[in-house]
């Protein structure tokens, strides 16, 4: 593989006048299944081998993706990519340049305790069946349970025309489990998402008993929940909601491509935009976290990047292209979902640093508000408007937790909301998830419990 990929990058430089070329190959194997109420729909296995070729010619990108490892086909494709880049460059006003990155030769191995490729499909199915059984037998009002499971193992290869060559083992274990409950015409829905880059040992801690019980409880508690009031309220957010808030409301704006596209952070570097309690990181080095890896898909080592410290914006997330524009160091955030797409700036594990308050202290002082414990989804806009949908929530009345409320969401503008973070907990949790930006990326997010003095709550009551 090494010789083939290096030959392709040389060909781009020597024959087609590319300023830069990279060849990225993958040999991946996936095992997946979907289980509904304990019935396996179809156990699935897949092979995905292919090569992504990316070249910079006259300051424009050309990219070709080919599901083949045939040298003739690939040579033709890289010529094609160079030709297309030339066509795209015709109207370039600002040709693309890349920030310098160290030349790396490395072979990254993973050492899982339990390699998912060596765990039998029968065992994987049994774990899912067990989770389903726990979720559905705990309470008869739980009517359905769906388990999606996926693991991915294999190797990725990267060669660049600058001399970088990296072979990197890939390992992901992921599962999403959802349950619904029904009583007297009230329908509820509950979801859990698990992920790891360590190995199948994920399920030693996230056992069927633990996961099944969390799901069933959440779905059934919601059955007696009332809709929240719409309006502006003080709220306490759980680590699971803080994680998605940091990811959606700040993380996306810190992606340098979006900052350049007119996002609100571009003009706020070095400025104070949050309260003193606000410190965020995006960290690709957390051992075993779902968003961790050693090198990104441009061959840049993943770093721990400080995004905002005590309320002051300190950094952005970069590819080599955006790092050059900001005169910054690449941070190792250029990621590609697979060989079909080019690397773009993605988050890794994004989280808020804990401080010193207990959960009870956060609740104190909230007369009428909400505790948002667990999220269902979130989305951000370049102007700083964020939305986070909530799947588990409770009222706070006079500093104490009250009745459950269902299907709320919160919204606000990042630049206002970070200033309103008025207390931060001392606990800390991380979650695993997937983020969509045209491509899917595996990410982690988390933080402590926090209190925000004011956000808009979208409620129908």
């Amino acid at each position, binding site marked *: 593989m090494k010789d083939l990929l290096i030959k392709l990058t040389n060909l781009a430089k020597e024959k087609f006048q590319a300023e830069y070329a990279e060849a990225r190959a993958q040999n991946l194997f996936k095992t997946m299944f979907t289980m509904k109420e304990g019935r396996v729909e179809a156990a699935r296995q897949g092979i995905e081998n292919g090569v992504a070729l990316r070249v910079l010619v006259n300051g424009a990108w050309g990219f070709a993706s080919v599901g083949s490892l045939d040298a003739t086909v690939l040579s033709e494709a890289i010529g094609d990519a160079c030709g297309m880049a030339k066509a795209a460059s015709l109207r370039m006003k600002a040709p693309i340049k890349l920030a310098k990155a160290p030349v790396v030769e490395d072979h990254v191995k993973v050492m899982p305790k339990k390699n998912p490729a060596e765990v039998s499909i029968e065992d994987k199915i049994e774990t899912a069946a067990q989770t389903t059984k726990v979720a559905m037998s705990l309470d008869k009002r739980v009517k359905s349970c769906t388990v999606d499971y996926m693991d991915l193992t294999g190797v990725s290869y990267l060669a660049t025309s600058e001399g970088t060559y990296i072979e990197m083992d890939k390992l992901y274990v992921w599962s999403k489990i959802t349950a619904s409950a029904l009583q007297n015409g009230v329908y509820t829905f509950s979801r859990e998402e698990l992920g790891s880059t360590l190995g199948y040992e994920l399920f030693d801690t996230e056992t069927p008993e633990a996961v099944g019980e969390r799901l069933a409880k959440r779905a059934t508690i919601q059955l007696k929940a009332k809709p929240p009031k719409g309006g502006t309220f003080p709220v306490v957010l759980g680590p699971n909601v803080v994680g998605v808030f940091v990811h959606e409301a700040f993380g996306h704006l810190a992606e340098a491509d979006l900052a350049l596209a007119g996002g609100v952070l571009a003009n706020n570097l070095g400025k104070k935009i949050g309260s003193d309690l606000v410190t965020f990181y995006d960290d690709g080095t957390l051992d075993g976290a779902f968003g961790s890896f050693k090198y990104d898909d441009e061959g840049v080592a993943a770093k721990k990047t400080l995004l905002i410290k005590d309320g002051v914006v300190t950094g952005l997330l970069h590819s080599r292209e955006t790092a050059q524009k900001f005169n910054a160091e690449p941070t190792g955030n250029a990621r590609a979902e697979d060989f*079909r797409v080019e690397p773009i700036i993605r988050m890794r594990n994004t989280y808020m640093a804990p401080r010193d308050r207990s959960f009870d202290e956060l609740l104190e002082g909230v007369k009428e508000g909400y505790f948002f414990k667990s999220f269902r989804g979130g989305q951000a806009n370049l102007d700083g408007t964020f939305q986070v949908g909530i799947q588990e929530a409770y009222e706070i009345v006079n500093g104490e937790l009250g009745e459950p409320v269902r299907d709320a969401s919160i919204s606000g503008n990042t630049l206002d909301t970070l200033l309103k973070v008025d207390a931060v907990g001392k606990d800390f949790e991380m979650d695993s998830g997937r983020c969509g930006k045209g491509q899917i990326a595996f990410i982690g997010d988390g933080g402590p419990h926090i209190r925000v003095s004011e956000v808009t709550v979208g409620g129908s009551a």
Partner: protein
Amino acid sequence: MAALNKQTMLNLAETAVATALKQGAAEAEAFAYEGKATMVGIERGQINKTNRIIDRGLAVRVQLNKAIGFAYTNIIDNQATIENTITKALAAAKASKPDPNWKSLPEKKPYPPMPEKGFDKKILELRAEDLVNLSTRMLDAATEADKRVLPIEGGASAGYGSNALANNNGVSGFDEGTIVECSLATLAKEGNTVTPVCFEFSADRTLNLNPEWVGKEAARLAVSALKTTRIETKNYKLIFTQFALQELLYYTLINAVKADSVERDQSPFKDRLNTKVGSEAVTMIDDGLLPGGLRTGIFDGEGVPHQTTPVIEKGILKNFLYDYYTAKKQGKESTGNASRASYLSTPSIEATNFRVMPGTKSPEELLSEVDDGLLVSYLQGAHSSNPVSGEFSVVATPAWKIRKGKIEQASRGVMLAGNIFELLKNVTATGNNERKMGQLVAPWLLVESVKVIGK
């Protein structure tokens, strides 16, 4: 690489079925896929990239002792890899559990002729240079419209896709199609004011794009979002454009009409067939044969012919959407709604072209019925709706104030909260401005009394 022809694709699928049966499968189905696309990308106001993707693959589904196994590979020019894939599918079936409700793979049925306007040779002939030209026209139209507009991303693409499907019951089908599109996301900046992102696009199965219109509209929308007004918290009349409907319906209503959701107690439409679930103004059909539809094809993901299925007729719930498995389990016929994500997934129930039938009123006439309301286009967070209860709590940004029938200033960050099943009952009119948007084909919708949390 040139496209694989019909015979090559069919041979691939039929040979895989024969091989799987020889290897011991009780039933076998194979799906061959080829997709080719050329794209030109715009970032921050300039064309800066081109992509070409050729993706081919073969997926095999087998049944063994009523247990189902599935495997795929994207290496299809090598017989050993294909045989290995079939072995993996059989191994997956052996590791799986028998399903007493499994009946069989679909039987052979005649296919309708390919609806018009699904394939255009001119799209195949588009080169990167042509797409650069198309994108330039779109970009120029946007920037010439107003200096405050920032085209942030977009581009143009031309794609071709074909698939062949075969099974041991004699099903054998080939289908191919083309699609071309261009799109532009914009925002407007004035002083310290940045608008939310606005978006416009044009997509068709034949070479029939209007890049200048896309550029101008994307610019006009962003500029019109610069001036803002405060919105009071209360219930309003809303007009939903197709952008908002597409998001909202996909994450709520469309789940509720899938037969498996109904069977699994995940749909409030359970036991509601032939009863009133919406206002008279609501008629919805699933039309896999709509000429020029972005999801049109002659058969579905398991080889069942596409058809036209009435879902809601003047407010009365008429049918659910079925794949073959769920249909047979309930003693019904498949409606041709099994869908696949190319060769990577097993078939599952999905709408084809989900059509909200248009009414007779022009957009202006719909607006004239609103004294004090909002025009809602772009939603944030529709995917966090409750997929079972249909409850949604989303941000509409920008949304535009409607006063006395006229669109006025924009609002930022207002929230809408409600329930899709209540909303259906409050639809008072549909526009005559039908438009295709991914899976959805719909006009504007006028809805009474939706809770808006102001800002």
